């Protein structure tokens, strides 16, 4: 029974280890391509959000490749994500596929269900073995995220264009190949970080500092965001991002990678959005406030068309922008979004940020 799951950035590096530890064979869905998107579009409801459409495409392509057990995360709402698996199962059944779907619901829906599901994924393994594997998986996931965070921050300083991306790929490879053991993971992390730090930098180069906020799938899956972070890095932008995969998977850990705790986020958002609204809605507002307060040059919000939580945030962000005098670019992505239009907006946004920066420096000089 080959197991599969949808793509989400670097998540697969960890899931491969985890499923192997569970004693299961797996088949990765083919890489996200135009075909994945087309399949997803054809079989999804029209105004569902893009993540649902693409993950449907992933499942179809994985089933075609021979997978027969689909693993999907669940949720308790109010964001639609928590109900994706149900709708995907219905759609795939309707298409006539023969498969089993295992939905990993969060412990908030009951610990028993959670434990039973884990045992279905890892039949014959003891709870202790499962817990140990999950702990290791988090260790590796955080190592990957720690590397990614550095890449986002320092790509803008590289002397040779593309060097950081190259080092990043090599670093991910090191982590991918590391044995699923504590020491091996720690060693691989050091080596991977070393590769990224080793990229030759021009530390005197002026760069812009931008915060990226929004819906997690759009932020974490480069296929849907047109690799916007790499583009920004090459355009001289140092990036802080609101969400990382391991932070997103373990909401209780207070965002070890991102570095801003849930409490801080809520407090920052409160004057503008004083309640959670599901998904990343409140975090989008909270992070924007925090970035604005830390002198960032600008903030970019990315989310899929019809996403409820981030649409709420988008309605509120202009007020944050006015209060803190910080430019915010909200980009709503759907299947019709083209890279050219996106790049034009980004170029113009960067021009805007640079000219503000220059004006500010001029003012400082004239004082």
């Amino acid at each position, binding site marked *: 029974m080959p197991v599969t799951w949808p793509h989400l950035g670097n998540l697969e590096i960890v899931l491969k280890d985890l499923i192997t530890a569970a004693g299961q064979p797996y088949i990765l869905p083919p890489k996200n391509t135009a075909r994945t998107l087309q399949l997803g579009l054809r079989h999804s409801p029209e105004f569902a959000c893009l993540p649902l459409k693409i993950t449907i495409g992933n499942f179809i392509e994985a089933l075609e490749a021979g997978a027969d057990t689909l693993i999907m995360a669940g949720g308790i709402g109010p964001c639609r994500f928590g109900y994706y698996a149900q709708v995907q199962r219905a759609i795939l059944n309707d298409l006539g596929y023969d498969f089993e779907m295992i939905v990993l619901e969060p412990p908030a829906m009951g610990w028993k269900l959670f434990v039973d599901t884990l045992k279905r994924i890892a039949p014959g393994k003891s709870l202790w073995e499962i817990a140990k594997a999950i702990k290791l998986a988090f260790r590796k996931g955080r190592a990957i995220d720690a590397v990614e965070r550095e890449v986002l921050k320092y790509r803008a300083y590289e002397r040779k264009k593309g060097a950081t991306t190259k080092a990043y790929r090599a670093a991910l490879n090191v982590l991918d190949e590391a044995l699923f053991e504590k020491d091996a993971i720690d060693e691989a992390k050091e080596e991977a970080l070393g590769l990224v730090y080793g990229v030759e930098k021009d530390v005197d180069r002026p760069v812009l500092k931008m915060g990226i906020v929004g819906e997690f799938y759009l932020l974490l899956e480069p296929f849907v965001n047109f690799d916007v972070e790499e583009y920004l890095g090459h355009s001289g932008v140092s990036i802080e991002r609101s969400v990382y995969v391991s932070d997103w998977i373990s909401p209780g850990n207070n965002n070890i990678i991102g570095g801003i705790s849930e409490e801080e986020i809520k407090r920052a958002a409160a004057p503008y959005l004083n309640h959670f609204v599901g998904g990343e809605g409140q975090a989008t507002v909270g992070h924007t406030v925090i970035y604005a307060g830390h002198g960032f040059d600008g903030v970019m919000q990315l989310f899929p068309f019809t996403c409820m939580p981030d649409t709420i945030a988008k309605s509120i962000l202009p007020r944050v922008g006015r209060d803190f005098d910080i430019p915010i670019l909200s980009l709503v992505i759907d299947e019709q979004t083209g890279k050219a239009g996106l790049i034009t907006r980004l*170029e*113009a946004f960067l021009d805007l940020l640079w000219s*503000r920066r220059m004006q500010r420096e001029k003012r400082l000089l004239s004082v």
Partner: protein
Amino acid sequence: MRKANTTGIHLGIDVGSVSTNLVALGEDEEVLASVYLRTQGQPIAAVQRGLIELEAQLEDVPLEVGSVGTTGSARYLSGVIVGADIVKNEITAHAVAASFVVPEVRTVLEIGGQDSKVILLKQGVVVDFAMNTVCAAGTGSFLDHQAARLGIPIEDFGSHALKSSSACQIAGRCSVFAESDMIHKQQMGYRVEDIIYGLCQALVRNYLNNLAKGKEIVAPVVFQGGVAANAGMKRSFEDALKTEVIVPKHYHVMGAIGAALLAKDSIGNGETKFKGFGASSIDYRTSSFNCKGCANNCEIVKIEVEGTVLARWGGRCGKWEVQEVEEEAAV
């Protein structure tokens, strides 16, 4: 900070999917020549034709080309063809041009053939913008189409609108619905000028709703792009914004003017990379192939001159572009 010793003329080239515009600015940044062409899906041919026409207009000008800049959706492609000193996005180019014509401008409304923008400035600096590329409502192409349907030359569309004493209400939030509503109103016997003026008002409402939402439109307001020729649209903007709307003399080539100004500013004392008006006679060969590197099978576009690859782009991953940079570095 413009360098005082820049000499020669400065070219700006704006290549969009619908129109291709070229201008030549003199040393005092006056427009010496301008060309407005249809792109017709062939940006290279349009740029080459434009260069020929521009050169002909400049026959009596004794100056050399000091710099050249490109903008518009085909800015990188045209930049390669002409040897641009600067390649800039059209939002910045339009803002620069507008603030050159009206230095204290606060709002730029731009409606071109295929897209529309709003740009807000403060003290000559862009502080906010929005751009619409998906929705056709209100763009030049849509107005052309409606003019043809009503049997009125597009040049007269605006003057018809000015004749109207009471605009009729048209649902303008989407071009498809606007069209069906217009047909309906026509069948009910409304006067053509009232329908046209109603359409202009609907398109302006649509534009303000889609693009200018939550943005404070402050005067002076400059209206540019091909659609600015339409006096009905200008009047409708003035009605809706309750302020005077300035249409600059060279409203239809403002993007190109911006590109030329940016080029002049960037060149300083440097040498231009301009390949000369002769670029128009070079046989550029564009071809495409599908990259087999991954399942994306991206279509990669390639421009060659006599077997030398000038540029390549189109891949999702940027692999082809990056390779070229590395090749350059190796030289």
